[in-house]
């Protein structure tokens, strides 16, 4: 018995083509499975995953962190509002034309958001700086 791993194609897109491609998938009968962001050194990778009859496919945008704006797909899949508000709350992205926009209030967190730094940036921020190292004599 061999282990079953499904095929998982990922199509890289420009953000201006996202909504039209999502509309095509909806017309073809795909359902939205998930949307997630990954913080990289220079960009955010945002992956939109769909499924139709157990056929899994994903679209991916790579947007600069300095210009982290993406169009909403809630015009096609209204259920995406949870994922897109998550992108805004936890990653600090701006989602335009969002049909149900909580404006940063979907997640009620005790900690300050967004959590959009890379691991290296978080470690650098947590490291003691030369000015505030305990015991240092100036």
């Amino acid at each position, binding site marked *: *018995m061999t*282990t079953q791993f499904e095929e*998982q194609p990922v199509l890289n897109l420009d953000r201006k083509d996202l909504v039209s491609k999502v509309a095509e998938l909806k017309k073809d009968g795909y359902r939205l499975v998930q949307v*997630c962001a*990954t913080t990289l050194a220079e960009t955010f990778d945002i992956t939109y995953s769909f499924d139709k009859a157990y056929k899994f496919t994903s679209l991916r945008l790579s947007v600069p962190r300095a210009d982290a704006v993406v169009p909403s797909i809630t015009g096609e*899949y209204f259920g995406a509002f949870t994922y897109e508000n998550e992108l805004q*709350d936890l990653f600090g992205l701006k989602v335009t034309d969002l049909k149900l926009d909580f404006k940063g209030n979907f997640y*009620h*967190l005790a900690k300050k958001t967004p*959590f959009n730094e890379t691991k290296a940036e978080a470690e650098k921020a947590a490291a003691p700086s030369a000015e505030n190292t305990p015991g240092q004599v100036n």
Partner: protein
Amino acid sequence: MGKQTIIPFGPQHPVLPEPIHLDLVLEDEKVVQAIPSVGFIHRGLERLAEKREFAEMVYVGERICGICSFIHSHAFCHAIEGVMKIEVPERAQYLRVIWGEMSRIHSHLLWLGLMADSFGFENLFMNSWRIRERLLDLIEATAGGRVIFGSCKVGGVRRDIQADSMTDVFKELREIEEMSREITSVFEKDSSVKQRTVGVGVISKEDAYQLGAVGPVLRASGNAIDMRQLGYGAYGNLQFAPIVETGGDCYARTMVRCRETHQSFGLIRQAIEKITSGPIEVKITGMPTGEFFARLEQPRGEVLHYVKGNGTKFLERYRVRTPTFANVPPLVHMLAGCQLADVPVIVLSIDPCISCTER
């Protein structure tokens, strides 16, 4: 349009074991809109993957939820195995099915009890949980834990079930199944259950599909979609079909879970009959490089574990999309137009697991 009132529902509410918050916009007793918000117990487990070695993250993944703990650990392992193209031994695949289906039964029995409690049927609630205790004892006897199994690992499983124990499991499951059928027949036939669930919280086949519903919520509206059909684990070797109802209401969602409970007993029996002897794990070498989306069927529906490895022992990204998160938009749709008194029943009908959602 009449005068509108906003009632906050949750995060603390008598029928909610976990904190989700809904702002209910009412006209008299009728809900015209429900606005959800989450995050009250957010734990940041996804980012923990940047600081824990990928093999250790199995323990974290399993602790995302106390009900579908084993399936979370299975999903994480399946994702890593997908990235590293690891062939899991056949015996381990069957053991994963056995523990996975035990998880499904105990989750559905737990939910049936909570559902009965939500409409005030205390005796049914207590009987559902009494039966569930027998199953938890069986899980403890085979896996060593009642909540956290600790059995799954990347490349296989940590524990085996010996042949003589397997016979005991078979016999015990038969007794639990008989008791479960008595309970589920009450849910199916009792008039007071029907009065609170039939025609309540209806969502159509198309709306459930388009809004991204998963699991029993999706199947109770007539969509035959069950991730176990992908054939992961040993499911590819077992005979079963998705359980489907067409009513799209709270009663249909209850019936799907009742029938899935029966189906899970059958799947465990099939797995016990087909399981072969052999190793239960393979040695893992190397570090994960690449990405994989593992999609498994939890009791509440499709769960997705996404991992992205960069060739180090730490993952670059770990993402968990839980079934409850996917079922929030369908829930909002179901609540629009319902009576205030039906809100607890409708909310419970999606089997919300907020600890999963707040991974």
